[in-house]
């Protein structure tokens, strides 16, 4: 089976955000594989172990994304592809999807797995956009995946309810928490990963012009929300605290 994972490098979930020169500062920031994409990598490896074939992990991003790709290889993926987007400015989710679609154009794809959302940009657009450009169906926020021949049975999370879906290969799916427990890379895995192929491509290699991947939206400004003041911890007898809280919520905060 030809199994692909689309993966984004992102800030560690613990990171605080600072802004420098109008941009989110990356100074001293720890990067990780987007948590939802980790589920996608894990599921891809399980699929390969069950059905045979190969797992290729693809990312569009800066050169430094090779670290996250190596981690995916250490988890057990077979190959990685880094498409360098540094030459292009003013990109958005349209751009990423367009670049990925150009990459996949000449590939035989059985399944593409991604995350349902990247925890930084957080639009959730890239998966469905890519599926449309490749003219294959997509299923978002999946929590269970079973493949039998060409038949695919999926459970997806819909705001807490579970939808049981049937479709067939080729398909693009996006992972939701609960799909699996991603493994940690083992030491032998990390050693092996160093020798696995990691192909680096430029936009040019995909026969794309810069203006073809220009975004359809533009960011004017990024800013931090006003810092939240620590509030009032109530004191006194518990019964009085409870009364005070209820009254504060009604008269001061006016939310009840």
């Amino acid at each position, binding site marked *: 089976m030809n199994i692909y994972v689309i993966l984004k490098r992102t800030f560690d979930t613990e990171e605080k955000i600072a802004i420098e020169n109008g941009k989110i500062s990356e100074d001293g920031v720890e990067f990780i594989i987007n948590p939802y994409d980790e589920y996608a990598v894990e599921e891809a490896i399980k699929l390969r172990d069950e059905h045979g074939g190969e797992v290729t992990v693809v990312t569009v991003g800066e050169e430094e994304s090779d670290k996250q790709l190596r981690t995916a290889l250490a988890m057990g993926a077979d190959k990685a592809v880094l498409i360098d987007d540094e030459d292009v400015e003013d990109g958005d989710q349209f751009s990423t999807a367009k670049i990925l679609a150009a990459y996949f154009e000449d590939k035989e794809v059985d399944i593409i797995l991604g995350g349902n959302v990247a925890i930084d940009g957080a639009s959730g657009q890239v998966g469905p956009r890519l599926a449309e450009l490749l003219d294959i169906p997509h299923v978002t926020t999946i929590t269970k995946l079973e493949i039998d021949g060409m038949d695919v049975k999926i459970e997806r999370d819909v705001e807490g309810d579970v939808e049981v879906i049937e479709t067939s290969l080729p398909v693009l799916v996006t992972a939701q928490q609960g799909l699996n427990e991603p493994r940690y890379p083992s030491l032998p895995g990390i050693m092996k990963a160093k020798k696995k192929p990691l192909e680096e491509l430029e936009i040019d290699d995909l026969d794309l012009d810069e203006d073809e991947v220009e975004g359809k939206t533009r960011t004017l400004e990024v800013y931090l929300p006003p810092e939240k003041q*620590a509030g009032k911890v109530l004191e006194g007898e518990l019964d009085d*605290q409870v009364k005070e809280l*209820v009254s504060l919520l009604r008269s001061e905060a006016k939310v009840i």
Partner: protein
Amino acid sequence: MAKKVLVLGEVRDGELRNVSYEAVAAAREIAEGGEIVSVLCGESVSGLADNLIHYGADRVLVVEDEKLETYTTDGYAQALLQVIDQENPEGIVFGHTAMGKDLSPRLAAKLGSGLVSDVTGIENTGGNLIYTRPIYSGKAFEKKIITDGISFVTIRPNNIAALEKDESRSGDVTNVDVSIMDLRTIVKEIVRKTTDGVDLSEAKIIVAGGRGVKSAEGFGPLEELAEVLGAAVGASRGACDAEYCDYGLQIGQTGKVVTPDLYIACGISGAIQHLAGMSNSKIIVAINKDPEANIFNIADYGIVGDLFEVVPKLTEEFKKVLV
């Protein structure tokens, strides 16, 4: 410049979701005096059309087809593409709900359009429509404009106020015929895990429990409080991992992102990944027995104490004042 803007009305359990009315209000902003056309898809949904008009839509298009009874990406995409083709709108607004998130990028890709997702505010500055949205789980915000194609927008529930309901408004309700071909994904079954109560992402009040709740039964007092307040019940991942509740309730970085008017956190320590899902709530109340718990740093009001003692008292007190 006046523009025509479509709004997808979303039906759940036979009723329009509140976010659809908020989407109409958002569309008003985007239309700059132009026409708001709501689209309702489903099997027998025409009875809901007037509500959309009362909340500010000028017209409603009703697309009824048995293949649209349950949402599928292909079915809804085909229906909407035909509507878009017929109406030629300049913009289209969805709720940032499971359906909106699944459908809007697919349509935007098909039409080569820009899409700004999860919008919490819209302003018009000298004819430029500027969309505000949270990034990095609400740790930062960005302002965006759409530069190409039909303007696709999804709005986060609870952030853009719906217009006042006006039952004297009237408008055309028209049926539209569409042809829906093969569906490549089929919904075999929908297993209801959520209680009928209030939907988390749209709830005005949320009572959330963490590991401090200690067991599935421990959620009982929280549910009682929620009942009295008409609130939804949520949870931290700590509580979900410990199997006190379903993952569907999880709020945070890898769960739902919520912005209710009031968030009551019970036995939740306030890990950064939890805050990512709720820190933009209007008012936060923390109940925790550890005075050092991080949740107190972002809470507007806090009570240090045992939740099993505090929560039932709170329920009683609310009962008294809310009769």
